[in-house]
């Protein structure tokens, strides 16, 4: 099994704030890795380092076996990396269809206009967005906006997909819908996925492996079962009562 992403001893600070302090992790092909941790743990910063928005102060990032540390974002994207943003960043004054189409146009595939338009339709149908295809993206509600984020990322037909809280703000049935789509997309496109997620039962359910960040450091790594049993993880979440509760619920449901 080949290594898709390797992060080695990455440091990043902003002014006096140390956002990442020596984080390392490895993501193998075909896996879903859940990245969890309380707010301010450095999860999104790590995404921004991987995708080249930030240059790490120290450490390396390797994608598909190549050292990409310090590469610009668009070059990393062109390697076959797609991401979603925690606060969705649709192209607001383009239609949903145009949003996906532009993403297809800049993927590595060489498609004719007709093929690109058909591909866009297919992706919109896959995510149940086809009835909104010609609405402006700025008119979508949160749930549809999150789907559009995912659609635009999938349109790139990436090898590695980074999802930054795609489930946040969704109601339970929408969460279930998105999880289903992520699983199916993974099978269909042969994706490797890293997902930042606060919806704990979801990430425990879908991830093969979990990395816990806390205050810029890697606190724990393991299978969902190992993580759920790790007392250090529970302690870290105690600073965040809502999430701690989710954890306790998870543990008690396990016992039953």
């Amino acid at each position, binding site marked *: 099994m080949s290594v898709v992403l390797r992060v080695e001893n990455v440091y990043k600070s902003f002014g006096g704030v140390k956002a990442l302090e020596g984080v390392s992790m490895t993501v193998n092909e075909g896996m879903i890795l859940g990245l969890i941790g309380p707010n301010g743990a450095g999860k999104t910063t790590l995404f921004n380092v991987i995708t080249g928005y930030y240059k790490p102060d120290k450490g390396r990032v390797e994608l598909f076996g190549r050292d990409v540390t310090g590469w610009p974002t668009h070059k990393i994207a062109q390697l076959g990396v*797609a991401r979603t*943003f925690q606060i969705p960043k649709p*192209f607001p004054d*383009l239609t949903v269809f145009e949003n996906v189409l532009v993403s297809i146009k*800049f993927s590595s595939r060489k498609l004719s206009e007709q093929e690109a338009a*058909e591909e866009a339709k297919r992706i919109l149908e896959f995510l149940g967005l086809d009835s909104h295809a010609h609405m402006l993206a700025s008119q979508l509600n949160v749930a549809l906006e999150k789907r559009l984020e995912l659609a635009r990322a999938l349109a*790139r037909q990436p090898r590695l997909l980074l999802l930054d809280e795609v489930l946040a703000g969704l109601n339970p049935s929408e969460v279930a819908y998105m999880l289903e789509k992520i699983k199916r997309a993974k099978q269909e496109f042969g994706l490797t996925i890293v997902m930042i997620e606060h919806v704990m039962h979801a990430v425990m359910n879908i991830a093969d492996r979990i990395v816990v960040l806390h205050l810029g450091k890697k606190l724990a790594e393991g299978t969902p079962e190992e993580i759920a049993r790790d007392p250090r993880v529970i302690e870290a979440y105690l600073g965040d009562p809502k999430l701690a509760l989710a954890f306790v619920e998870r543990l008690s449901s396990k016992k039953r």
Partner: protein
Amino acid sequence: MEAKNILRELARGRMITNITVAAIILALLTIGIGSLYSETLSYYRETLSTFMMLFSVVLGLNIILGYTGYVSFGHAVFFGIGGYTAMVLMYYYGVNVYLAMIIAALAAMAAAQAIGFIVLRLRGAYFAIATIAVLEAFRVIVSNVEYLGGSEGLQLEASYYTGYSIAGYRGQMSVHYIAYFLLLGTVTLGLLLNLYVSRSQFGAGLRAIREDEDAAEAIGINTWKFKTLAYVLSSITPALAGAIIAWKRNIVLPEEFFSLTLSIESIISVMLGGAGTVLGTVTGTAIYHTVKTIFLTSFPSLHLIIFGITIAFIAEVLPMGIIGWLRLMSTRLRFLLE
């Protein structure tokens, strides 16, 4: 709507645009040729020359403001650079206007590359202000450099024009006619550039930058390269127009060539028609030019006030412009109006 139907509607929209653009160019050409043989058309020749001068700047501006979303508030800087470059070549070296135009355009493109290197790292209002500052800085420099004529400008002698002729008109008599056709050529080039941007992958990338630069970068667009190229392309037609007008008026002056007013007029025209649309540039410039001409002749002293009211009105009531507003009316119109 099926993918096939979307493409068919889009193709229909492009056909409409092509016909409109071709009709405009043909009409202008006909009037130009007609004016060579009929004195009654000379009024139209002059007002259309002024229209095409503004239109040249508008067509450049639309690429960076309309498609890329960068509010270049001092876009006349390229008109000035073009005008001054051409004038230096004609005044000191006796270069003919055609070569001077080409060199002026190249100079403006080089300047856009250099200025862009500084200002394109700024976004939003900071970019807008920086472009005003660049324009003002050029004006101050030009007014203070003796080689460029200082605040008096540079003026060509009548003897410079002896070699020019068209359809029996010679020397200075031929200038207004030749300038008209040169401006028409510039406008044609500008329209082709806009059509290219509107329909190409490059243009799709620019629109993505306009909508969200971070997201554009995330889908693999080299935003820095794209916006720099857009800025460079946006400098060409303003510079050509500057060169032609310098030659036509036989003089360059700092305030008239590095003009905030011309910059603002082109922004109004782009916004009025609908930023980032091909049809909008024509519509906006035509309406603005017509209204301005009427008001300037009827109430010359009120023109600034009328300008002001127009701008505020567009901003508050119709910020997406006429074509932009129509495109929001229905999905069909969105495909049809390019």
